[in-house]
């Protein structure tokens, strides 16, 4: 039922991943916040997970025809306690100065997750109350989970340690 509801509501934004898997919604970036708000009204009361993916060298993923693949993708997993059903929201984010509206106002629980996505991928969530690094030290340079940030590139740094130069 929820699938038809979603599909009739946001015609181009919805694609079914497959017969068994959960519904996946592919909104355009500018409609992202509105669609998440509509999903919340539809009973998806719980934000399970939000994470970013860096598709730097791999652009062959299946998307609805009206969307072009971008380097970054934000994946928001919503859950409905009443329906015991999940829905995935995948939104494309461009690689130059990546920005996305924050959904903290709808789901306060994604605060830490959005901070992690910012810390690890450098995606800035607009109107997030505390857009700072969460896992890396405050003065860290770069975003470690990006594909072009190679392993072992930077020596381990500690804020208080004396610098070599």
């Amino acid at each position, binding site marked *: 039922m929820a699938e038809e509801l979603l599909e009739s509501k946001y015609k181009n934004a919805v694609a079914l991943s497959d017969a068994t*898997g*959960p519904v996946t919604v592919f909104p355009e970036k500018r409609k992202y916040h509105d669609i998440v708000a509509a999903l919340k009204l539809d009973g998806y*009361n*719980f*934000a*399970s*997970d939000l*994470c970013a*993916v*860096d*598709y730097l060298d*791999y652009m*062959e*993923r299946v998307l609805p025809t009206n969307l072009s693949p971008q380097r970054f993708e934000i*994946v928001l*997993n919503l859950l409905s*306690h009443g329906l*015991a059903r*999940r829905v*995935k929201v995948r939104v494309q984010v461009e690689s130059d100065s990546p920005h996305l509206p924050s959904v903290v*106002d709808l*789901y*306060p*629980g*994604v*605060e*830490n*997750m959005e901070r*992690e996505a910012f810390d*690890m991928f450098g995606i800035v969530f607009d109107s997030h*109350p*505390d857009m*700072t*690094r*969460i*896992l*890396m*030290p*405050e003065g860290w340079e770069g975003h*470690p*989970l990006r594909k072009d940030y190679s*392993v072992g590139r930077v020596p381990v740094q500690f804020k208080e340690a004396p610098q070599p130069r």
Partner: protein
Amino acid sequence: MTYGHSSFLRLPESSAIDLSEDQILGPGEKMIVNMGPQHPSTHGVLRVMLELDGETVLRSKPIIGYLHTGMEKTGEELTYVQGATNVTRMDYLSPLSNELVFSLATESLLNIEIPERATWIRMIMCELNRMSSHLMWLATNGMDLGATTMMIFGFRERELILAFFEKTTGLRMNHNYIRPGGVACDFPDGYEDDVAVICDTVEKRLVEYDEFFTGQPIFRKRVEGVGTLSAETAIELSITGPLLRACGVPWDLRKSMPYLAYDEVDFDVIVGTVGDTFDRYAVRINEIRESIKIVRQCLDKIPEGDYKSQDTKVTPPPRLRIDESMEALIHHFKIFTEGFRVPPGEVYVAVESPRGELGCYMVSDGSAKPLRMHIRAPSFVNLQALPPMLSGSLMADAVAIISSVDPVMGEVDR
């Protein structure tokens, strides 16, 4: 927003008070102090910035990342065969849940079925792990509240379970036992007796805990009405696991969205009423009882058969075949050096770990290594509940409240 918005301290990490300045606070002046990261009751390296008015906590901010070791980045460098050794180190108190969620995600992308016996072995091991994790929580929670007896008792019972894990998997922790395709080896001979002894012993000891812990007035005074969290706030803050159930929300993935064979066993979802620290204690101690119930049913229902998939794509040939067949040797070598290729796709799988919803979002690009391996760590999200729970409580209660969240820093920071 209905949740305690005012309880969140949003200041940079460096703004805690500098003791060297030796400043004297006037009456009514607020002070920001650090609790941790080297505090014995913060379960590792959690640092909480507390805004204090006298002894009352007003706002707070958990600061994490001291144990960050880039395990998600490491996960992209390891093949699917090696990946389980990496994820098992995240939540070091329930390593088997981590391996399970990783294996389920990989199997879902591979689209393979695992043998029925492997499913039941996984269930027994995960439920035993839930018991050991909750016992460990009882131990550390007792220590935080000054009940050292509880600490010794919790460790004693956990030892029983770890000894069985060692017998089965070869290791006490970080087992790499549940692997994509099944489990590493079958149970040892006579495992039914070992598991039955564990269940009987822990069940008897739980009655003892009830006598001198649950009913003890000093303990009750320290936990009742402390750190209350409402169900609405918990859901808004994406809280899962015993924390959410203590608020009265009957949400348990094993029941609500069953995986493995949890729909074939009979157990209850334990919920609290008030959502205070005592409810969280009660939920956990009763969840041990439910786990015992599940393990006993599993022992009755576990079928005979293979313990790992016979799909040669993911399963190496048996040891004996390697000695007599060159092809088997090559096959073995290929699986452990190159790994197996996984069809392109993305999947989100979630299981109920002792701490809450443990999810794995995995993206494959068709190679032998995941393009992205994200773990939704329950403690990482559950720590967001600290500010509303701490707000208005005394500094001394902060210890009990932090302990009741049961954060495992290895999982929080990954």
